[in-house]
């Protein structure tokens, strides 16, 4: 989850607020981010049972506007953005021509000719260059608004009830993937009923200059600050892939269970993604020994793949992992994972591990 970096780490507008809240800061995707405050387990549980708040301002925001905005996005993404009405958001992929992913992202439709894309922090520069390259020939304007917006994720079963008294938006009528504007604690914001935790919740875009005041106001409502550690255990329980682990430039994305993200249309990756994937992404459950990224996965003593993400599930109380295994081995039930030279039984389980 951490990586060394030669260049100075970037900080979100909430850096000082994180330090005040007792965060431990770590390098992540070129950013200095809070990995935990009180502790991963406590933060995880707060999000599953009440509500927590994450700073995800490191994510990138690109605005795509112009007469060809929809046609351009239809070309560079795999999912059908024409089906998105203004005020709706959808999960999507940016394929490369070889059939891997440049990134996975969320697409928010602002208006008939205007979209907002939210991309992974570590891929901002790469995605920007990729989009510029394919924009030639389209009447479209791309704007990198990553510095403009802070992004706060308020997640958990009590998220709506906690926010409702403090906004002019009617949250109770907004369904999953709704995208709308309003005020929150007096600050103008954009809301999306989206998240990466497997819980109900909202992602809140706020101008960077208002971020700290909004964050402090939200903490005062009783939201638990949660860091990247809990974000990772929550998304893993929910079976959400993470770019750099389950997705990569050279990984066939249909190895995942998210095959619905690819629609029958003329997108950049159409030829590359056609072939059946040689590997499949599976879920594994273990008794006691936690398994980590890169550990070998065995079937009948033969290596058939490797772990892409693993942790001990705070909700389930035992280790869980996602693994890429050879397609011909993917339907087996009893695997083993090699941990420090010793094979430990790992049972295949359907993804997600947790569903609310």
């Amino acid at each position, binding site marked *: *989850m951490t990586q060394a970096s030669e260049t100075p780490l970037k900080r979100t507008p909430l850096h000082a607020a994180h330090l005040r809240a007792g965060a*431990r800061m770590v390098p992540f995707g070129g950013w200095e981010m809070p*990995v*935990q405050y009180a*502790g*991963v*387990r406590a933060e995880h549980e707060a999000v599953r049972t009440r509500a927590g708040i994450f700073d995800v301002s490191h994510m990138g925001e690109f605005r795509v506007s112009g007469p060809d905005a929809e046609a351009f996005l239809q070309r560079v993404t795999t999912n059908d953005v024409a089906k998105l009405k203004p005020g709706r958001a959808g999960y999507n992929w940016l394929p490369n021509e070889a059939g891997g992913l440049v990134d996975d992202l969320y697409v928010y439709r602002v208006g008939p000719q205007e979209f907002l894309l939210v991309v992974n922090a570590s891929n901002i520069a790469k995605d920007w260059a990729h989009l510029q390259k394919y924009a030639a020939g389209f009447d479209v304007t791309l704007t990198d608004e990553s510095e403009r917006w802070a992004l706060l994720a308020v997640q958990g079963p009590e998220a709506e009830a906690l926010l409702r008294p403090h906004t002019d938006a009617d949250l109770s009528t907004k369904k999953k993937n709704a995208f709308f504007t309003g005020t929150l604690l007096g600050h103008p914001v954009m809301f999306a009923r989206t998240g990466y935790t497997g819980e109900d919740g909202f992602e809140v875009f706020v101008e960077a200059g208002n971020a700290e005041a909004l964050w402090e106001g939200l903490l005062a409502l009783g939201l638990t600050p949660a860091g990247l*550690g809990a974000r990772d*255990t929550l998304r893993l329980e929910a079976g959400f892939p993470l770019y750099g682990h389950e997705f990569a430039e050279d990984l066939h994305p249909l190895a995942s269970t998210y095959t619905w993200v690819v629609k029958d249309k003329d997108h950049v990756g159409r030829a590359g993604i056609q072939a059946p994937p040689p590997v499949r992404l599976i879920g594994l459950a273990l008794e*006691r*020994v*936690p398994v*980590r990224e890169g550990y070998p996965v065995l079937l009948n003593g033969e290596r058939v793949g490797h772990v892409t993400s693993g*942790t*001990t599930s*705070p909700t389930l109380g035992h*280790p869980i992992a996602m693994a890429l295994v050879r397609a011909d081995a993917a339907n087996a039930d009893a695997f083993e994972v090699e941990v*420090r030279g010793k094979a430990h039984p790992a049972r295949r389980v359907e993804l997600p591990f947790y569903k609310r």
Partner: protein
Amino acid sequence: MQTPSELKYAASHEWLAPDGTVGITDFAQDQLGDVVYVELPEVGRVVTAGETVAVVESVKTASDIYAPASGTVVAVNEALSGSPELVNSAPYEGGWLFKLDVTEPSGDLMDAEAYAAANG
């Protein structure tokens, strides 16, 4: 951060008691976060100072534990298999890892003051 004065400390954050008991420091458990699993050595294993003898796993990461002295493992903390969180809640007491019959103390260990200064 607690650093009991009767213990010796390794730069890699293990502590060694005069009776040969080994654990990880308060600083180390705080850095690791919630401990979920501890892999301990076999009783009877002969270890050399600096060798990997155990693994402490938190929610976030796996961390190797090095022998702070040479000797033979004479006991391991069986309580950790059911309650690995003892490493967090009582790193110098109930969260001890294993006990060595020390044959050769390592020359590289620090006293409490030096360890605390190095990790202040």
